[in-house]
């Protein structure tokens, strides 16, 4: 089994699971309880808060635990907009944000906020100047992701945050695809809010966090008890939070090592795949890209059919093609990058994990070209292309 779908979910690191287990059977107390069981749980989540804070160079009190990257993003947007409403009503997001930023943003738009999108170039890069141009005196919030999970591009966050700081605008970055995989330092990045999620760095699904810089006013979206300093009610997922903490600790410790290894493998994959299959485009930025991320559009072939064929060979990947999406819409990211709709249908994303080996890449490179060949033989678009080429000669 070769798993190249980091962006969907990473496997749990064995040490992460090990650290979680006691919080299932032994220390099952509610962290808000005063008795021994409760206080054990409380200590555990506060320790995890420290680990997560350390991963991104924040203060523990600036870490708010949530249940998913999506919840973190929702909280950032829906929490900041009303809290800053008296200062203005304009929000800026990039056009390649995750749906969990885009949807809340458009919900806010329906509630009376003004919304602007900044576009990206063909590599998926946001131009900080575009953010500057989009600013108005009414702008209260900018949200641009740290790295895009579909094309791997890493955005110039520092430059964008500088512009926001100058203009006294709150800046959120969705670092779900980045945190735990590349160095992330909230203070050098200059961000006010940052979303991260455990299942992107070998932690458990259902456990994520939002960094909220000290002093930032933010509303809650889940109201009730006083958990998370009153910013997010609900009995804590103690084991999940503990797992997130351990994953953060491991990620920090092994950051460089994991990164270097993955970059080597990624570059091999990109180089050799481009050599062995023709009519392929690399999507995203060649250099500013996530270490684990290699994404392409394979012309004349649709993504789901590649994905299924690879799955039958034991290789698991994902795709941004319309056919692979439940709503049957092609990836808005590929669209925003100006990729032709038919080409975008050939989207395929290989996202590597810690455990990935050079042999895994070799195996992929062995099984993938025949799959493309078979599917192209079936493709009316490829037939047309060949005919046209033939006619041209």
């Amino acid at each position, binding site marked *: 089994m070769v798993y190249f779908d980091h962006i969907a979910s990473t496997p749990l690191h064995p040490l992460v699971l090990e650290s979680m287990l006691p919080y299932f059977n032994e220390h099952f107390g509610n962290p808000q309880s005063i008795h021994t069981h409760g206080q054990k749980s409380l200590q555990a989540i506060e320790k995890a808060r420290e680990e997560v804070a350390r991963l991104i160079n924040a203060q523990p009190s600036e870490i708010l635990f949530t249940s998913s990257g999506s919840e973190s993003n929702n909280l950032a947007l829906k929490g900041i907009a009303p809290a800053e409403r008296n200062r203005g009503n304009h929000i800026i997001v990039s056009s390649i944000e995750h749906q969990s930023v885009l949807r809340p943003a458009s919900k806010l738009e329906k509630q009376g906020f003004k919304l602007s999108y900044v576009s990206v170039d063909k590599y998926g890069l946001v131009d900080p100047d575009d953010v500057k141009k989009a600013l108005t005196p009414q702008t209260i919030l900018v949200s641009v992701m740290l790295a895009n999970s579909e094309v791997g591009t890493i955005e110039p966050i520092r430059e964008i945050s500088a512009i926001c700081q100058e203009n006294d605008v709150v800046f959120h970055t969705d670092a779900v695809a980045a945190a735990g995989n590349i160095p992330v330092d909230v203070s050098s990045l200059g961000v006010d809010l940052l979303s991260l999620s455990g299942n992107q760095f070998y932690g458990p699904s259902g456990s994520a966090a939002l960094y909220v810089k000290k002093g930032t006013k933010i509303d809650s979206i889940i109201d009730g008890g006083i958990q998370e300093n009153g910013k997010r009610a609900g009995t804590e997922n103690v084991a999940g939070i503990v797992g997130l903490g351990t994953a953060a600790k491991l990620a920090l410790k092994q950051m460089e090592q994991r990164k270097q290894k993955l970059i080597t493998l990624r570059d091999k994959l990109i180089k050799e795949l481009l050599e062995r299959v023709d009519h392929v485009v690399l999507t995203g930025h060649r250099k500013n890209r996530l270490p684990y991320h290699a994404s392409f559009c394979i012309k004349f072939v649709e993504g789901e059919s590649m994905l299924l064929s690879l799955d039958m060979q034991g290789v698991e990947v994902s795709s941004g093609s319309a056919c692979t999406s439940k709503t*049957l819409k*092609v990836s808005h990211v590929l669209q925003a990058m100006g990729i032709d709709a038919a080409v975008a249908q050939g989207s395929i994303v290989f996202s590597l994990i810690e455990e990935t080996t050079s042999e895994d890449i070799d195996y992929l490179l062995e099984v993938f070209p025949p799959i493309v060949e078979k599917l192209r033989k079936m493709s009316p678009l490829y037939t047309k292309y060949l005919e046209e080429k033939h006619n041209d000669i």
Partner: protein
Amino acid sequence: MIYNEKVMEHFQNPRNVGVIKDADGVGEVGNPVCGDMMTFYIKVKNNRIADVKFQTFGCGAAIAVSSMVSEMAKGKTLEEAMKIANKSVAKELGGLPKNKLHCSNLGADALHKAIEDFKEKQKAKRKISDSKMDVKPVVVNCPYCDGPLNGFEEICQKCQVELENCPQCGKPMKKGTQECPHCGATR
């Protein structure tokens, strides 16, 4: 697996893939929902489909459906072949995921188009000189004002209703509708 074994079997070993250079009829359809494409080629002898081939640019379901349609069509009279319906294709495949039901439309539509193409050519006594055809997206009307749509709009230009595509049949319906006015699918 998102598909059952029968679908996967057809996906892995699709029958009748290819092009018939001197086809008697060619039918090509594009899918307004996901932008995919299917082409059917037929050879007709004594009013029967003597040979059929297809090419498909699309998902696993689309490929399996084409394969199944081609099998079902082979040897049938043109009238019988015209009766191959989307529902029966999906049924023959043992069912498809809800949001993939529209793919089964593609297969039968492309076959029917090929048959129509054959008939028109017969009428005009024309020879097939050009196997290329324009992609004809399924043209539909707004289910609310009956205004013209190409199937891609998020808003009907005529009545301004917000639209989304039915995950079952792929046709446009009012956003948030619980029941598709075209195929009756419920969420």
